[in-house]
């Protein structure tokens, strides 16, 4: 199924490129033709400008034009149990070490008398030492003897931006935005240049040395297109992770965005993220 999807995508890209090339050649020819140049160039440019709507992926019973997926994080509910991280690693075959994560959880602790929060994630050496293994995820009780003024957890993942910087910089188009709002990577087409890893302001992308391509969260596309929830949302015991379709006004995510004052990370980048946060403060970015 996934292969068909990739094939479709490659064919689409080929068509787009050929139509662009055709347009460009026609424009070039029109310029050479002289007098009638501008008029012809406009006419020739038309087919390239009116790009066809990409076809649906070959997923039975799934129409990607009918959904607009979005994700919510209620940081006030997160307890830092890290089941989401574990579920994600298992569901998506993410390398089981402390340097490759499709999702992670950050802990913000402000001690009494301090202004700036102390931040760590499950990948911090202290937390790995506490769990005893890079494959086990735990937050060490490192502040038990300190006087904590404020503390909270923030789950992080790919923001599936509306204007994704990673998609912009990909030289081959191997990473792309789907019609239903998810940013995916074609692992059979990625050349592994890692330009997208640099471009992501959120550190959501990593290079997977096992298949030598870039990787990141897909909102468990293999699950959501079958009507299931992403693995991290499924296992969250407190409902800190919310997922749904914004096309449905009654969906849990539409209600979450409607009923809360939500914010996104780094709005100044212009990327327009689609992960909406509640309960974070100024230190979080």
């Amino acid at each position, binding site marked *: 199924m996934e292969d068909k999807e990739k094939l479709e995508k490659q064919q689409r890209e080929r068509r787009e490129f050929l139509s662009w090339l055709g347009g460009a050649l026609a424009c070039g020819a029109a310029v050479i033709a002289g007098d009638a140049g501008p008029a012809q160039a406009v006419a020739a440019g038309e087919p390239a400008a009116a790009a066809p709507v990409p076809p649906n992926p070959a997923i039975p019973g799934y129409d990607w034009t009918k959904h607009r997926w979005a994700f919510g994080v209620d940081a006030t509910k997160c307890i830092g149990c890290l089941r989401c991280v574990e579920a994600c690693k298992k569901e998506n075959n993410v390398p089981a070490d402390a*340097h490759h994560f499709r999702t992670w959880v950050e802990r913000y602790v402000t001690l009494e008398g301090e202004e700036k929060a102390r931040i760590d994630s499950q990948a911090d050496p202290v937390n790995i030492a506490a769990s005893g293994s890079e494959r086990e995820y735990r937050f060490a009780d490192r502040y038990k003897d300190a006087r904590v003024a404020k503390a909270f957890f923030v789950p992080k993942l790919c923001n599936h931006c509306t204007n994704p910087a990673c998609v912009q910089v*990909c030289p081959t188009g191997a990473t792309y935005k789907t019609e239903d709002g998810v940013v995916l990577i074609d692992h059979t087409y990625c050349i592994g240049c890692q330009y997208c890893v640099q*471009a992501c302001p959120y550190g959501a992308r990593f290079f997977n040395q096992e298949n030598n391509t870039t990787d990141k969260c897909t909102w468990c596309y293999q699950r959501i297109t079958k009507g299931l929830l992403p693995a991290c949302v499924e296992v969250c015991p407190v409902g800190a992770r919310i997922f749904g379709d914004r096309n449905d006004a009654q969906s849990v995510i539409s209600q979450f965005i409607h009923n809360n004052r939500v914010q996104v990370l780094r709005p100044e980048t212009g990327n327009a993220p689609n992960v909406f946060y509640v309960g974070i403060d100024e230190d979080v970015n």
Partner: protein
Amino acid sequence: MEALFHSSPFTGYVYPNETVISWTLLIVVYPYLTGLVAGAFTISSLYQVFGFRQLRPVAHFALLVSLCCMIVVPLPLLLHLGHPERAFNAMITPHITSAFAVFAYAALFYVILLMVETWFVFRPYIVHEAQRAKGLPGWIYRMATLGSHDVSEKAMSYDRKWLFALAIIGIPGAHGLHGYVGFVFGSLKAREWWSSDLMPAIFLFSAIISGTALVIVLYVLSCKLRKVPVDLPCLKVMAYSLWGFMMFTLLLEGVEFASLVYRGREGYDVIMQFVEGPLLIPFFVLQFGIGSVLPLAVITFFIWRGANDRALLVGVTASAVLVLLAVLMMRYNVVIGGQEISKTGKGLLAYHPPILGREGLLAAAIVLILPPILLSVLVRFLPPWHDQEQTA
């Protein structure tokens, strides 16, 4: 078994995925090489287009230096790619919004331009050798004539027109290619250390000084190896060019750094920590002090003294070696430095390059040594030496 990846220790808070630095030494070497291409081409153009007659002894040599560097340019990129066998995907389906999509086309265009220009420059020699040489070399020269044996005055005047045109196209070509490399870094909004409108200009000017310095060093070395005297007026013009372009480079770098500090945006504290800590030796001592201020002072001294002796030769050559080091350090400080400052704006990573492996020190050193090796072979086939030209 060699580890699949190399992680870097950090201080403060960095995103978990940032601990594996993704652009390493080969991506330091890549802009360094394209810079050398642009710089060496500049020297050749100063003669071909702008009529700097004193540069005649190095004009053709500089062209070969540029060509040899350019042939090697794709190598560090291919070595870096996770799937080098898919590199052509970027050419088959270029994703137009990517600053990197047209690189392959631009590089290909430029390699072809350099080869055609080289062919025109050496055509009389190729024709001469095609008629004279025997065996394999003779066969190669006969192939290289491409069937054109006409070296009459009319044909040569036609060649000169082509050369002039190619050199003119080559100037925006070479400089565009390198300014564009600067844009690849400068256009990334995710990294404060890179995100600057001045980046393409800084890359360009540092490219010109590195290429000029390389031509100086290789020219002096070639004279020593061939046991012929160095043409001092020529060396002097190159030293003056180096001085002028260095002034621009330093000014641009200074303005860029000042703006970064003055703007003091988010993550500024960590950048200052970085500048005052890990960057002290590679930037302030190596790149700025020993690599820029010292050679600038030395060349200024010779300009002021107006010397034409052995001291000039030693001073300028030593300065050029330092400039080559400074520009390499500049590429390192930009490419690696940018990734050592975490995107969180709250932490720093410390990259220690591995010696072995596909992206290690050894691989980078081999890539860097390839252009001179290629050049030493090429000059035997196409001697660019001015003194031989007169006797031939």
